[in-house]
């Protein structure tokens, strides 16, 4: 049964990554998900018209770690150096929600049965919403890959979608994690060096400056949006408790029975509406910024790879010069330089296309989300007004 929240989340999944080239030849969707202890298992259904696939329709079960494996495979593939590698979906994290639920269960004796039931229901629906969100994020990641004309041809992607059995992907062991850590460290150092790199190409010079700066700004905004969302959510619980207080008065005081009864009813609706305000704020605003923070990072990575390629080319040129001076190993050096040049030009060409589509995609997504957000908030506030007005009219008669 689809609720309003379900629709919003599904819609969200399909719009944050506006499919630029999905010609229907590969469609992927997550049809089911099960939460098991520490992991979530996603059921992924694929319909493929691509020749590389062995069947037209298939269904597999994957867990989050397997998504990370796929992402790592794509990131490390030198062929894709010129693409923005779609950012991996965030790890499902139900710890906070679980904590809240256990705390409330423990405090059951301190509140009335009614209160406890309502609170539990509230927290369970929060848990469910979180769950749906993680499903949507994972689905969106796959859809983005399926829409990319080159990445969808990737063999690892095909294996991910096709291979019936467990991929037996182990999470990185300690050695690999530390290795990854050092890799990031050097990457940061390189990034710093490259940001001072002189690039003759104005387009890339400008793009790099923009992305580095934008990434920093959006990180801050994302944090502030998360805080705002939490705050908006807190208010809905308050309304619920106020409704409870009114209900008590209505029961205890016969003269106020109908009046306070009506107040309680109105505030129960206010609670639901406030919840929707908070959910939509979270989906349309917080998630938008979170997603584009990750995308900006991915775009930066692309520019970094190109910068590396440029640095390699420069080094190759130096090497050739030295070889020419010494009349030694000239053909090797020439061949190497040729390789670097080709690589660099290929990456630059791919990057340009990617960055342009990134810009267009971003504009479109921002527009859609901000418009949706405004319309939803207007609708919710108007609902609040009409509910309060209706209540007020009834109250005046009582």
């Amino acid at each position, binding site marked *: 049964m689809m609720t309003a929240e379900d629709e919003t989340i599904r819609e969200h999944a399909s719009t944050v990554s506006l499919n630029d080239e999905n010609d229907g030849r590969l469609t992927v969707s997550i049809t089911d998900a099960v939460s098991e202890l520490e992991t979530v298992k996603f059921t992924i259904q694929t319909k493929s018209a691509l020749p590389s696939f062995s069947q037209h329709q298939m269904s597999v079960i994957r867990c989050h770690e397997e998504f990370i494996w796929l992402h790592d495979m794509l990131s490390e593939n030198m062929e894709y150096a010129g693409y923005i590698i779609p950012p991996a979906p965030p790890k499902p994290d139900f710890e906070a929600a679980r904590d809240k639920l256990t705390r409330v269960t423990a405090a059951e004796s301190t509140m009335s049965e009614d209160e406890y039931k309502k609170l539990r229901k509230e927290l369970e629906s929060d848990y469910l919403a979180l769950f749906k969100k993680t499903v949507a994020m994972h689905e969106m990641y796959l859809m983005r890959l399926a829409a990319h004309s080159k990445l969808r041809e990737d063999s690892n992607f095909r294996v991910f979608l096709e291979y019936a059995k467990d991929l037996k992907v182990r999470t990185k062991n300690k050695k690999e994690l530390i290795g990854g850590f050092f890799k990031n460290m050097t990457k940061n150092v390189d990034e710093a060096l490259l940001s001072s790199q002189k690039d003759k190409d104005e387009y890339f010079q400008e793009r790099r400056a923009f992305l580095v700066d934008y990434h920093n*700004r959006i990180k801050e905004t994302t944090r502030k949006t998360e805080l705002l969302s939490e705050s908006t959510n*807190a208010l809905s619980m308050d309304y619920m408790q106020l409704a409870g207080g009114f209900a008590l*008065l209505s029961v*205890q005081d016969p003269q106020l029975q109908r*009046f306070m009864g009506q107040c309680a009813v109105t505030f129960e609706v206010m609670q639901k509406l406030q919840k929707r305000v908070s959910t939509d704020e979270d989906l349309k605003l917080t998630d938008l910024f979170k997603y584009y923070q990750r995308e900006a990072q991915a775009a930066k990575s692309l520019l970094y790879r190109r910068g590396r390629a440029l640095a390699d080319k420069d080094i190759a040129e130096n090497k050739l010069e030295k070889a020419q001076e010494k009349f030694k190993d000239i053909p090797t050096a020439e061949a190497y330089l040729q390789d670097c040049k080709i690589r660099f030009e290929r990456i630059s060409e791919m990057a340009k296309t990617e960055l342009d589509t990134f810009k267009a995609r971003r504009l479109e997504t*921002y527009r859609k989300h901000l418009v949706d957000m*405004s319309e939803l908030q*207007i609708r919710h506030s108007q609902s609040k007004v009409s509910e309060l007005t209706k209540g007020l009219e009834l109250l005046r008669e009582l």
Partner: protein
Amino acid sequence: AEVSTQSTGGHLQGAIPVRTNSDHDRVPFNTPAVGCALDDTKTTALLNAAKESAQQNLKKSIGWVNGDKKSKDSACIEISSYTRIGEGYNSYIVYTIQTALGEAPKTTVQRRFNDFFVLHQLIVENYLPRGVIVPPVPEKNFMGTAKVRFGGNNENIQDQSLFIKRRKAALERYLNRLMAHHLISKDETLRRFLQEEDAPRPNPNASGIKGFMKNMETMVTKATARINEVDEWYEDKQGHILEMEETLKKILAVVDNIVADRRDLVAKSAAFGASCLHLGEGEDNASLRRAITKLSELENNLSTVHSEMADSDLFVFGETVKDYISIIQAAKAAFDERVKTFSVWESSQSTLAKKREAKNKATLQGKADRVAQCDEDIRFWEGKVEKCQEDFEVISKNLKEEIRIFEEIWVRDIKESAISYFQKLIDCENQIVGHWKEFLPEAKIIN
């Protein structure tokens, strides 16, 4: 003090029909508080609206209690302003009270908080023994007062200002409640408080050893008495009132939470707005930059609305709940007073019985002059018992009436308060709709 003659503003459009009493001069109620260190117009407006609403309600109560709609004793009491006297530790706030009693000319007096406190003690001494539910005086608040005394002119100015405003509004409600009571309104001490230059002085017996002993007696009597009720009404009512107190305390706690969460929302929306401004500056597309900047403006506007809502939570609804929790304390005191009266009656009955026994003993022993003495004692104690019984019946009757009045006024007040609260929420949500509608076209033209 300046008194502006604005006509009754639109704060409570349609909330209550305003009864105009054309026979008498009416002091306009919506005089903004002057002499405040910080003129926060919105808070003031809310307080004025709440005050106006409360006064309208109380006036209705006066008219109803006195049995006629056009009472000649209609009174308008208003704290028109306040000023700080002195500096630092010895400084204090003085409130200017303007009173118009019926057709008499308006009087103006200056009073500090302690004067109210003394007035309250005198009224309790006089009326509590009669079973009156004495309107509670606003609490002493060490922290708030200290902040006002020591607070410089820079920091905490908002805190100070809010504290003073709340206290001023509470004091005004207090005086109007006194005036609304059919017995207390005629009290001489109250009249002196409102009209004479010097505030009433405390009763010398109340403090010092005598007062202390009296209090001890009260405490002991309270603890031991139990009434065999002929009329279940008293026990029922007392139970009902205790239940009400618990519920109101719960509701107050919720209101405090709402206020705190809304104030948090004020801060978080403003912070988000600021970060949007920063983000917008970093945008490479002109229309997107504009849109994000507009989003920042929107959030700042929303922040202001949330602030208004928080004030409304507190002043329109919260203060009413708080007041009634205190009034319930006064009601509990009245019930306790009745119990005390009963136990005084009981103890005088037992003394009478002892005297009668003593007479029997003396008669048997044939001590004639002792018998005569005992007769005298018996006569005295018979008289006392009769008086105690009378006192008990009077206080029981008064208490029933007081509770009846209390319940009527409570229902009216809380309904009024809830209605005003709804109205304010509607206003604020409409403002929110307006702000989003302003933003929407900006989002649509992103390209």
